[in-house]
């Protein structure tokens, strides 16, 4: 079903105008829901992170209501950013890519329904954590009663995505399509396993912790990695108007990521037999190979085109994402290789690496993709490039001001904990200056996410206003004609 285009809309800038076609029309509503919701959740999540970070400098800040205590705020923020922000954005980009690369129209209503279910699940879950019903498992804190909504919402969207792939125009697949297809299957599998064996029929003892680590690693490294890499590979090539550097490197990345990615989650201090951390260490080291492949691929495709980088905000976001993926990988490998691994793994260093992955890689790659996709869906040029540029710098600086101090805090804490002469309070005090700087990072990220939300909202509001104006014009055209005839 198509709607008539506004004939000469007063667009914000005179940039390259994109005429949406059928595929864009079919994607528009579900993707608007997904992207706007992800912007809202990113904002909410960053805000909660900021509040949590401030509590280090003033422990009694917002300590009185039970629902704002650090132990509830922090997991709530984490889950909001992860499930509400990043995963939704990733799903939107993934579905668009499947539709676009397959040349198939998306299932507009069904996808919107799925997206709404997912959002409902995230909302219920977020409020549930604040109410004290968190499951207690890291990255899986959403309470039991929200799981069904999340699972159903994802299944609806996942099945639609699989159908999109199945009905594709060409037999030969694009690189991004393999990654996204694997991701579509990956999430329900790990999510249902984790929920069944942790919440519904819990396994006994430390098996729960192993499962929770397995799930977190699969979600972050594999699922977000798959969709993020699909985005990176597709958009780097697209925005530079080139082909991806090497098909076989991409193939190697795909295979090695799904083979090794999910094994790296068990920390070395875990109260489990030695083979589990050993296998995790081995898998983390072997992940160096797909990361190397990504580096080579992106570098080969980019091949020094810095001029294009300066103009194109999307490209800046996506390349920043790719760079931070590699940085996060290096951090993880350095973490397992160093001698003080036992102490380092339970410090801020691991948290820094996870945040780098979330805010640096996943979020930035999705921002880049969304700034490309959304204007195309609504038939505008890239509305407010200026806001997007400011957002980029805020986000980039935010990531740097967040991660570098947290990593520093982790290293300082590690050395401090190894030195028995220092009391624990001394070690904690030595990390506090770093944490103060990281609060600034959270602030920058919050402002950046606010700008993102603002940008998207303006785009969407203007689009609908134009449509409303056009619809009004059409509806009242008869009246004017009659008035002219009378006059």
């Amino acid at each position, binding site marked *: 079903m198509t709607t008539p285009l506004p004939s000469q809309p007063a667009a914000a800038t005179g940039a390259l105008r994109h005429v949406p076609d059928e595929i864009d029309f079919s994607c528009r509503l579900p993707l608007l829901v997904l992207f706007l919701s992800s912007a809202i959740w990113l904002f909410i999540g960053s805000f909660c992170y900021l509040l949590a970070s401030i*509590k*280090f400098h003033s422990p009694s800040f917002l300590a009185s209501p039970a629902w704002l205590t650090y132990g*509830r705020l922090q997991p709530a923020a984490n889950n909001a950013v992860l499930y509400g922000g990043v995963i939704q954005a990733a799903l939107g980009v993934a579905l668009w890519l499947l539709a676009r690369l397959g040349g198939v129209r998306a299932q507009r209503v069904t996808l919107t329904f799925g997206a709404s279910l997912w959002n409902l699940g995230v909302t219920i879950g977020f409020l549930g954590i604040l109410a004290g019903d968190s499951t207690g498992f890291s990255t899986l804190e959403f309470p039991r009663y929200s799981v069904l909504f999340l699972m159903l919402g994802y299944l609806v969207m996942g099945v639609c995505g699989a159908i999109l792939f*199945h009905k594709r125009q060409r037999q030969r697949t694009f690189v991004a399509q393999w990654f996204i297809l694997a991701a579509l299957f990956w999430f329900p599998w790990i999510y249902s396993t984790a929920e069944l064996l942790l919440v519904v029929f819990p396994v006994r003892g430390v*098996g729960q912790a192993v499962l929770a680590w397995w799930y977190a690693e699969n979600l972050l490294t594999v699922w977000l990695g798959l969709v993020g890499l699909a985005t990176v590979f597709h958009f780097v090539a697209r925005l530079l108007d080139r082909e991806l550097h090497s098909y076989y490197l991409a193939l190697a990345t795909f295979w090695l990521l799904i083979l090794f990615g999910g094994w790296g989650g068990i920390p070395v201090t875990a109260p489990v037999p030695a083979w589990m951390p050993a296998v995790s260490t081995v898998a983390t080291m072997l992940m160096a190979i797909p990361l190397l492949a990504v580096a080579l691929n992106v570098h080969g495709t980019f091949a020094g085109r810095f001029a294009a980088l300066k103009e194109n905000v999307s490209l800046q976001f996506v390349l920043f994402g790719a760079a931070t993926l590699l940085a996060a990988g290096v951090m993880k490998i350095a973490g397992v290789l160093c001698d003080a691994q036992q102490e380092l793994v*339970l410090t801020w260093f691991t948290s820094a690496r996870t945040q780098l992955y979330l805010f640096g890689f996943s979020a930035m790659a999705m921002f880049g993709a969304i700034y490309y996709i959304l204007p195309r869906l609504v038939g505008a040029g890239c509305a407010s490039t200026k806001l997007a540029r400011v957002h980029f710098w805020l986000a980039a600086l935010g990531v740097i001001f967040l991660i570098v101090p947290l990593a520093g805090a982790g290293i300082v804490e590690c050395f401090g904990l190894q030195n028995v002469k220092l009391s624990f309070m001394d070690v904690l005090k030595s990390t506090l200056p770093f944490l103060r700087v990281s609060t600034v990072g959270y602030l920058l990220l919050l402002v950046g996410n606010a700008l993102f939300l603002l940008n998207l909202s303006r785009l969407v509001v203007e689009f609908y206003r134009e449509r409303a104006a056009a619809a009004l014009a059409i509806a009242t055209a008869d009246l004017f004609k009659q008035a002219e005839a009378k006059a």
Partner: protein
Amino acid sequence: MRYGPLVFLSAFFAMGASWFGFVLMPHVQVGFLQQTNTLLAGATYPVGRPGFAREGLDVYRAYGCASCHTEQIGQTATVCDVVLEKVGTNQAVLLNALRNVRPDLSETQAKSLLDQLPQTVLQGLPKEQADENAKALSVAGSKATPWIVPVGPDIARGWGKRRTVAYDFLYDYPVMLGAERIGPDLSNVGVRQSDPNWHLRHLYAPQLDVQGSTMPPFRFLFEKRKIERGVSPDALSLPPELAPPAGYEIVPKTEAKALVAYLTSLRADAPLFVAPLSVAAPPETNAPAGDMSSTNSPATNATAK
């Protein structure tokens, strides 16, 4: 890859491998664990937490304590000490052996050492050396044993006597091992800090007993109520700046008491086959028991190796 099914199959295979390796195998190895026995004493381990402590575990979960505290400690190595426990029948021979093993001791020092048994004679040796030295000291009925000592930064910091193992969490749900040490590790806090009142004060106003702590106060776990028929035994004793106005008292709610019951039940120091350590046996002869106030090992004047 040209075909969809191939992508699906590769994802399926990788997923299956991951599931087999880190879901099924841990479940088989760790999920079906049964109780075990402690070393030497043969007591069953672990016993389930008492009911109130289990409620406390739920409170721990509901307030996200695992965001700041871990319950896992590591161990970097195991060394052996040699402990001389009993003199036996021939002190002269033992003195000789002792001075062989500890050339740094003078005659008088060695004699006075023999008067204060049990004593750690050598520290920090690898197992074979410790065994040899113990055998060398076991002459004429004297008793010298190699004493197993786990070492590591966490253990040195007093957070535990040995690493945490799967048995320590056998009956807990959910198992919250924590990932950040914003606060100290709690796996043995029931040993370090067994006074429930300390914990209650700490929850109410962490900065009272721990200067500069970043732990938020959990005042909502307490209630201020009018003193009716006399001060309640549960009432917290607080300094003047935090004390409630006259006629009122601060009492912990059930949640707080449950949480503290859980915290004081946390201990992971039983010697097990998978995490051996030597603990002083209960005294059965009239030999003096070792000094148990700070560490497990008896008193020592040994030079650390």
